[in-house]
């Protein structure tokens, strides 16, 4: 029953989202972009929030996903461009890369992990940009590769087509929304459900145990490296999916999506929204991308503002926006369940707040 309510509310939220951001200066395309990037943030959160692994290399999976999806359409199978094939090849390729890189990095201590993921992402950037520039068009990137229609049984849906015109007052017009949004929202729904199930499963519990106390988890008998590798590959695959969608949606990809800035963005989105929360990554992605959209239209200083917001969140809202809200609520609701839920060190200040 509770599950049903959760999924119904999530679906409702995804339906209302593109209309809700309309009165505050958003638009259908932005909603689509936010969900696409949000999928990668959800994957990143599985890694950072649940496995405790801080990756500065997610751009590698994101960028490779975009490139492979577009190349599938334009170079590998130009005679039979197929949407599903593009996505499937991208996710498969990225997952294999994640396995290879993951085997090298997951055995190492947390700080090393951040350095190495960053370095491998940088390597993939140069590989795409300089070494395989015949395939990837180097600096120019892949341009103007129209997404194939979405084949669904007997139907073939053009994702760039708008929904029927229907004026909705301050919430815009139904035709602001393209089929892309509908598709991406369904995928996002699936990813949220996946993430929720995963974090509540035994696998999620073990990841949490490893994060809290790696040594003890090892002594209990868990194969730590295997769990971490699994988390790394799952996050990589989701990021690859996100990148593939982004490539097909934008119809282009340039080397700059493989840079450190892109990797850093997933970190910023997730941390601002709230690590270890189900909706935090999505919320953070939406919040920051929306602000970027509004602010960068007015001033060049957007990235500076983003940096300042990020630092302020780390210092003053360590759980991110959603994490802090949830903690407050939990603190008020019941000190005892709160104490049971969190680790002792976390529970104490929260309990103190509630009694004050």
């Amino acid at each position, binding site marked *: 029953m509770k599950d049903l309510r959760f999924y119904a509310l999530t679906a409702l939220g995804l339906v209302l989202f593109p209309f809700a951001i309309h009165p505050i200066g958003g638009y259908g395309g932005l909603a689509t972009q936010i969900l696409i990037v949000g999928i990668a943030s959800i994957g990143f959160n599985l890694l950072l929030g649940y496995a405790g692994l801080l990756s500065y290399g997610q751009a590698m999976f994101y960028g490779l996903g975009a490139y492979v999806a577009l190349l599938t359409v334009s170079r590998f199978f130009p005679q039979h461009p197929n949407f599903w094939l593009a996505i499937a090849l991208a996710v498969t390729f990225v997952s294999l890369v994640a396995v290879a890189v993951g085997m090298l990095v997951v055995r190492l201590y947390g700080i*090393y992990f951040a350095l190495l993921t960053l370095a491998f992402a940088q390597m993939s950037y140069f590989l795409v940009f300089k070494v395989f520039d015949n395939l990837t068009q180097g600096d120019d990137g892949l341009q103007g590769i129209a997404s194939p229609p979405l084949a669904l049984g007997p139907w073939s849906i053009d994702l760039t087509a708008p929904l029927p015109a229907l004026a909705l007052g301050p919430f815009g017009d139904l035709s602001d929304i393209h089929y892309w949004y509908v598709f991406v929202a369904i995928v996002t729904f699936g990813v949220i459900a996946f993430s929720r199930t995963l974090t509540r499963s035994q696998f999620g519990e073990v990841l949490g145990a490893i994060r809290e106390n790696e040594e003890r988890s090892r002594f209990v008998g868990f194969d730590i490296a295997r769990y971490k590798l699994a988390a790394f590959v799952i996050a990589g695959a989701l990021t690859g999916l996100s990148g593939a969608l982004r490539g097909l949606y934008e119809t282009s990809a340039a080397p700059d999506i493989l840079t450190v800035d892109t990797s850093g963005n997933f970190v910023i989105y997730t941390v601002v929204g709230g690590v270890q929360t189900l909706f935090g990554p999505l919320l953070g992605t939406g919040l920051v991308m929306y602000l970027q959209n509004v602010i960068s239209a007015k001033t060049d200083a957007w990235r*500076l503002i983003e940096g300042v917001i990020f630092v302020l969140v780390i210092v003053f809202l360590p759980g991110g926006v959603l994490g802090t809200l949830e903690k407050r609520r939990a603190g008020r609701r019941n000190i005892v369940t709160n104490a049971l839920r969190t680790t002792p060190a976390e529970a104490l200040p929260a309990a103190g707040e509630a009694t004050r």
Partner: protein
Amino acid sequence: MRGLVYVAIALGLTIVFGMLRLVNFAHGAFYAIGAYVGLVVAGRFGLVAALIAAPVAVAAFAVVFDRVLLRRFYDKEPTSQILVTFGVAIVVEETLRLIFGSSTLPFPIPDAISGSFNLGFASYPAYRLLFAAGIILVVVAVWYFIEGTDYGLIVRAGVRDRTMVQLLGGNVQLASTIIFALGAGIAGLVGVAASPIYSVDPNTGFSFLVPSFVVVVIGGLGSFWGAVLGGLIVGELGSLTTLLFPAASDVVIYVAMAVVLLVRPQGLLGESEVIKG
């Protein structure tokens, strides 16, 4: 030549890691601050003044950063320390971009040292020779500070066992701050000294930071001579591949890193305890 820049930047990273167990993503920002402060000061008072002012300014900035922000994260998990240094790196880089613009700025070499030295077998730009000599001097000085002075003793002991040094009356807190400022100061100094060779733009710090991470991973994070050895290896590999297969010159160092990780995960001269925490 790049190798020497990596050596100096990696040196700062590695001594800070050794002392504070902190990986500083803002270390490239220190380099960039040094470069821009140097640019301004050199324009008014000459290169020598810039070589003094920049490291002092960057070290001062580092101390403020440490006291105001970083201190709050000393007892938190390492990932949140990385996050805060990453945030500060963005803020610094973007502030520099707003003040000085995104374009690449030239950093002229003073006429007195803009010529070439004749080494007998080849002639070499005088500035580059001075630069190389300067970096070697810095490496030796830092090594002496850590290995040869009483203060270095506190630092080295602090790396082994913080609590014990504190109980014995050593001020680990102060030693940490000094090491952090020292690492930053070196980055600032190199920021000035390398700028006539590589010019200055807001991304410059970061473009040196990532290869420097590779350097410390190859050499061994926390190892002094590892940083030196790693820097030279990475610099040489880059130059050699530029000659043989230019397209791969940026990739080869990461391949080297992957090989080292497979064969010797703690780095060439690193201690194995570091990688497991």
